[in-house]
């Protein structure tokens, strides 16, 4: 049974990979990907059960922070029941998303800017090397070039330095990193395809 699962996983992976290069197999690829999407949808439901189980345990054992777990569970059930009864396009359900979820995520984003500022200040204390200094100087230069200043923009910064950093240094570096990531993804994918790594059970 174990070998059958491995054989099916490898065969499905190979077909999907080859069909990217052989258009004649596009139909088979589409069918396999549709199955994968259905499975992913099912996994979302199982994931929600996992969330309920973990936070339910926290509330039952009265662990630290269990009040937040209780709030999460109540909110989850309320959203689920109302969403099911009224439908996702109902104005009240949209209101729930727009007045709770969006502001909370935006608040976290705002918190992140403060966190990053604080982290940048701590960076020199934690790691005083050339790269840290270059990183901070670049960040300050880019902020100064992008910010709306009371006395207007600083011309050489905005017209020369910012485009040069963005389009030469940053773009070149980003492309280098992305090529490395692509090669890593390729070899990792191939290892999974050949069954050397199995993220689906025993080896």
């Amino acid at each position, binding site marked *: 049974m174990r070998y059958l699962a491995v054989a099916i996983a490898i065969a499905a992976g190979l077909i999907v990979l080859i069909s990217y290069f052989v258009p004649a197999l596009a139909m088979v690829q589409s069918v396999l990907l549709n199955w994968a999407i259905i499975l992913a949808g099912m*996994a979302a439901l*199982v*994931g929600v059960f996992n969330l309920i189980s973990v936070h339910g345990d926290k509330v039952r054992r009265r662990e630290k922070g269990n009040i937040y777990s209780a709030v999460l569970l109540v909110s989850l059930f309320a959203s689920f029941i109302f969403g099911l009864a009224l439908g996702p396009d109902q104005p009240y359900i949209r209101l729930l998303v727009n007045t709770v979820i969006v502001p909370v995520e935006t608040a976290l984003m705002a918190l992140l800017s403060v966190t990053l500022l604080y982290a940048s200040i701590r960076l020199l204390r934690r790691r005083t090397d050339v790269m840290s200094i270059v990183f901070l100087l670049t960040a300050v230069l880019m902020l100064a070039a992008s910010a709306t200043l009371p006395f207007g923009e600083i011309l050489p910064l905005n017209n020369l330095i910012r485009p040069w950093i963005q389009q030469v240094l940053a773009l070149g570096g980003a492309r280098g990193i992305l*090529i490395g990531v692509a090669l890593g*993804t*390729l070899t*990792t994918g191939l290892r999974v395809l050949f069954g050397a790594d199995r993220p689906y059970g025993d080896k």
Partner: protein
Amino acid sequence: MNLIGLGLVGFAAILLIALSLMKRKSPPKWRVIPALMRLSRAVDLSVEDGTRLFVALGRASLLTPRGGAPLAGLDVLRRLTERTSLSDRPPVAAAGESSLALLAQDTLQAGYRTMGVSDLYQPSSGRLSGMTPFSAAAGSMPIIWDENISASILVGDFGVEAALLADAAERRNIFLLGASTDISSQAALFASAQELLVGEELFAASAYLDPGSSHAASLTVQDILRWLIVLTLLAGTALKLMGLF
């Protein structure tokens, strides 16, 4: 038919198989990555002092082109589980995507089974921490704060929200290694994480934790392909300068 793409994948596959089967006379020698050495030390320390490891796998779906990073993350999770399975406290893994959370549970269970301690596996050690990037980060922060964690490893596809996890670890004086394929999160983690793996170093992590023939071959294939790309870029630049291309 995309012959260049097919050729590249085919060449990589043949190289990977050939190098995996080739018997090495000496163990592979790789450059030292200080972040992974510190991770190894932190893992050993966590077993000794009975604390937990926290592995965050990010929010990428395996159905998207970003699926490579979570696969590498699951491999790292597997190595770490095997190394810490006999510890008093098992590692905790969290993902911001449901199918990845399920695979994390399966990986943890397989790691325990390999070490012959299946009964120590707890299903709650593989968790879905949230369904959106920020909710996943918010769901992971209490794990760092409250669950006796001594080392956090962020390995997968994260956005800038990874900095919130790094901040949570910093406040608890916990070791944190950040490894993400996303450029913006690499910048955020450079400023906020104690240790950072840049770019393709993420894919080398499991090989450094537990060198095997397929991992060694994988790193060699990456190096060969990287040199081929460098040579192609240089040749292209030279041809362009000569006005031939």
